[in-house]
């Protein structure tokens, strides 16, 4: 079957570790739609992780893997895969067993320990276009068809 999936691909040469992607992600997933309130009042956390080591930096978020180990490991049924291969995590159904955190090879399924659920990149499904890609000032994140 043809998979018609678009994903966010990071380009590490272009990343300047500004973390705009993290801020934009947190904001668009907040109630307030305000970057400061999202972090401070709502206690939200970013879904992409900007990693830095010496001169190398890169933004990493859920890869919507062709074989998602998180899906194998999910005990509650919160993680599902749609017909295009997009991997969804239903935070309300999630019981916080942390199996996805334990098996995700990219470290992209994050634990929200205080709230007893995991969270990860949802490709900004509700918005239609990933906020991180929009926010990136240096074209270090692109939204492209699955490779």
């Amino acid at each position: 079957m043809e998979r018609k999936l678009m994903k966010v691909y990071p380009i590490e040469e272009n990343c300047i570790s500004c973390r705009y992607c993290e801020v934009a992600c947190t904001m668009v997933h907040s109630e307030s739609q305000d970057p400061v309130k999202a972090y401070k009042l709502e206690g939200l956390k970013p879904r992409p992780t900007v990693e830095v080591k010496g001169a190398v930096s890169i933004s990493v978020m859920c890869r919507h893997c062709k074989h998602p180990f998180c899906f194998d490991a999910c005990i509650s049924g919160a993680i599902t895969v749609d017909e295009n291969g997009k991997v969804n995590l239903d935070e309300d159904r999630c019981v916080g067993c942390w199996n996805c955190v334990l098996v995700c090879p990219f470290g992209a399924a994050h634990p929200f320990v205080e709230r007893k659920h995991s969270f990860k990149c949802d490709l900004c499904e509700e918005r239609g276009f990933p906020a991180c890609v929009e926010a990136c000032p240096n074209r270090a994140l692109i939204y492209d068809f699955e490779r």
Partner: protein
Amino acid sequence: MRYVIVGNSAAAVGCITGIRKVDKENEIVVISYEDKCYSKPMIADVLVDFPEEKLLYRDKKFFEENGVTQILGHRAISVNPESKVVVLDSGELVPYDKLLISTGALPFVPPIEGSDKKGVFTFTELGSAKAFKEYIKENGVEEVVVIGSGFIGLEVAYFLREIGINVTVVELLDRVLGKALDRRGSEIVEKMLRDKGVNFVFNNTVERIEGDEKVTSVTLKSGEVLRADAVVVAIGVRPNTDLAKTAGIEVNRGIVTDNHMATNVKDIYAAGDCIECLDITDGQRKPLPLFPLAFEQGFVAGLNMAGKEVEYLGGLPLNSLKFLEKPVLNAGIVEPPDNSYEVIVNDRFEKKGYYRKAIIKDNRLVGFVAIGEIDRVGILTNLIRQKIDVSNIKERLVSLDFGLVDLPESWRKEKLVEDKTAYKDWRAV
């Protein structure tokens, strides 16, 4: 073509998922003596009156959409590989072209005098969890003795404290999770559970369960007597191989399969807690009764049953102590068996509330423990799986900001740029 699956849990759902990747047409039949497809790791939740609907792992819609017929409430009692039928306890014969056996594991109950009394329970099925809950209510149970401090025993103990019942865990070894966690990890887990009010008796075991019809106390090997209004036996599980044996399938410590999850009998596959799994950290075949592995094995079996040849990557011990306030995760080898292993520790538990440990052999990560701070540890699990050389990043493995930037650039290119994330792409490098 007709696929039949005995079992209706993690491995079965994995198998359905695998079959349907390849074959959207042919019929799938699932057989289980239980009445629904619930999440087994979540059964302890019934103790705290968690709504039972929430335990559902896959609903009716899932089976309908995947064209699966469920035969529920019936036990498969034998398989005849000559005529290719599964015989049910009702006498019904279910013909198959390809069969998956995913009969799970059974609780191990050692011969303890008095274990046939009322009030003695195991805890590996929704039915047994519910029966235990009923017994607690009907008998006003106040004191429970849990035999065994494995994952299930500790989980039961924790949930009993949540509903205000006094619990004593009796353990043969000198610490909790003796086989699954390292010494420091055990110490931390024990402390968290003691803070919750759980009592422990180590280096001891229950010799006799006392009472007339119903249990009232237990006598320990040391001679000590503990009041017990109920007893939970949680010593461990063993592969349920009864059905496989009726088909003449080779069984060792569990059902023996090849890398395609096929048994030695034609057209019969096996997956999940009932099999002997290849542990990639030590190369040995052994039961590894874990949910993610059961699903993955079922998935691989399903692909192969439907004609797509795929080799299983092999498994590794993977545990998450999901009920504690502070998460406790581990994978692979957690305590080095000899001094050919390197151990790197970052223990800030007292001051900062976290503990990290990495175990390395021949410059490959073979295991880790993460307590308190667990974000991104899946990267470590994958280092174990892919046997990636960690000689330049050993100290980083226990650092909280460890990430993909620590991995070889070629790995990042392959995974992040080329998107090599299909099943076969996760083999050892």
